């Protein structure tokens, strides 16, 4: 069976502001030759310090941004080689959850409308039973579809964001700091919910977090990044029990393990 996601030597550079008028601007390597494979039903955790390139990697896996070199295959297809309409169709199969549940929900729309948004990409009329089903799967009620975002707490809004991500029945969910802004108790509820959904729907997850403790509770594989480079990549148990790199060790110590 082919891996669901395969990243091969993916790199991305950004131009820094010029330090001097006559000198060429320096380039910053946000992601340096990252490679990984992610199987169906499994979770790959990406950890690393702030600015290490985690979100940049996520944006490339979601095809929001193209790598400067390397390729990303989704179910065997190079997503960055797809035309716009093929990509739109493929997008139904991978969805993203962002850190900020406020920013990702339109405050003027009922949440039912926002949850159905990914469905409208390919069908003009989104069936409402799918929205209802997604709401119930994240522990909310079907009737909540008629409420507005401000009527929900932060944790509930994150559940709504998850409902939107699963409404197309994707194979992959990319979660970028999806629980970082939540309090510990709500965080634990959302992590448990993601585990339930993974069991139920066979989802693969790319789970990005700066918090090693959060990642440890949910990941099969782990990729540790620093300054765009991959320091370690392998089974989560292996890396957490016997970190090979001093940086990973320092993260573990700082996290109080």
């Amino acid at each position, binding site marked *: 069976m082919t891996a669901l996601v395969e990243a091969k030597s993916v790199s991305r550079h950004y131009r820094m502001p010029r330090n001097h008028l006559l000198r060429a601007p320096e380039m910053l390597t946000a992601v340096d030759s990252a490679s990984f494979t992610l199987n169906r039903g499994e979770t790959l955790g990406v950890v690393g310090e*702030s600015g290490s390139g985690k979100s940049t990697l996520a944006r490339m896996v979601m095809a929001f941004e193209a790598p400067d070199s390397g390729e990303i295959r989704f179910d065997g297809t190079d997503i960055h080689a797809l035309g716009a309409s093929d990509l739109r169709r493929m997008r139904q199969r991978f969805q993203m959850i962002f850190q900020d549940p406020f920013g990702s929900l339109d405050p003027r729309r009922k949440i039912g409308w926002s949850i159905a948004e990914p469905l409208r990409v390919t069908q003009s009329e989104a069936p409402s039973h799918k929205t209802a089903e997604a709401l119930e799967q994240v522990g909310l009620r079907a009737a909540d579809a008629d409420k507005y975002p401000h009527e929900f707490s932060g944790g509930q809004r994150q559940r709504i964001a998850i409902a939107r991500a699963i409404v197309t029945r994707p194979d992959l969910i990319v979660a970028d700091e999806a629980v970082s802004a939540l*309090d510990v108790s709500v965080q634990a509820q959302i*992590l448990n919910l993601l585990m339930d959904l993974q069991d139920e729907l066979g989802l693969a997850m790319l789970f990005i977090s700066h918090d090693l403790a959060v990642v440890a509770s949910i990941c099969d594989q782990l990729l540790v990044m620093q300054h765009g480079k991959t320091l370690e990549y392998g089974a989560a148990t292996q890396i957490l029990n016997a970190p090979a790199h001093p940086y990973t060790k320092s993260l573990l110590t700082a996290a109080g393990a």
Partner: protein
Amino acid sequence: MFDLTNLSVHFGPATALREASLTIRPGDRLGIVGESGSGKSMLALCLMGMAPEAATLSGTLTIDGRDMADATERDWQALRARRVAMIFQEPMAALNPLSRVGDTVMDPLRLHLGLSKQAARARALDLFAEVGIPDPEARLRQFPHELSGGQRQRVLIALALACDPDLLIADEPTTALDANVALRITDLLVRLSAERNMALLFISHDLAAVARATSDIAVMYGGDIVERGPTRAVLDSPAHPYTRGLLGARPSATALPRDAKGKRARLPTIPGTVPGMADLPKGCRFAGRCPVELPRCASERPAVTKPGPDRSAICHVPSKEALA
């Protein structure tokens, strides 16, 4: 010195804060923890004179002995420019997307401290280096969207420190940061507090960060301060059931492999969610979610108990360990 006595905040019939009392002296490091919606930010906003228009306040706030009840917006502005600074929770919302982050930090230095352009730039560079922004020289000229989430957060911390405040209110300052940077930032705040005798109000749900940054702690739930005391003592032997739940829900950085059937262990949680402000139980706010609840809890407001030296908790059933 900041002195809050029985401060309550209402929005119509709903209570956002119920009779909160606090004293903050120079050099104090006080942590506030609690679930979202528990009133942490509201408490902080009241200390800055920034409570929302729609709020009805009661109780008293004195700053250096002056009752702030009749303070004008101008008085507050003067106070905010030099004496109280706040690191806001949402870095993207607090930064101007059209302004280079260096200018954002340099402007108040020139405006409030009267520094020259060069001096302000040098100070901004120092601040960026101090909060651990990599390549500070180049970053000064970048726009917020060109920075990572954690880098933006550190720009805000630099901004708050720029004018050398007497009281620094940090609302979730480390939430977007990895453990190493979070440690560095908490250590920096602790050091500045000691060096400058700056008081620190550290609001966070990151218990590890609070443990490191503060000497005293207040635990909030549903608009009440439910437990108070020295940080170590409270985290080592929490007296209030809510504090115990909060500590139990924290995952640890050890790998949790799947079992033979491929199932993962679930994390312990506090069941349910914080009720809306208008639906809070009249008695103990935690009633309905509390694992050791008594029949009278929902209707009868618990009295203050003293689980240890300098400690207090409001609960009908304070823990035995803490009483011992």
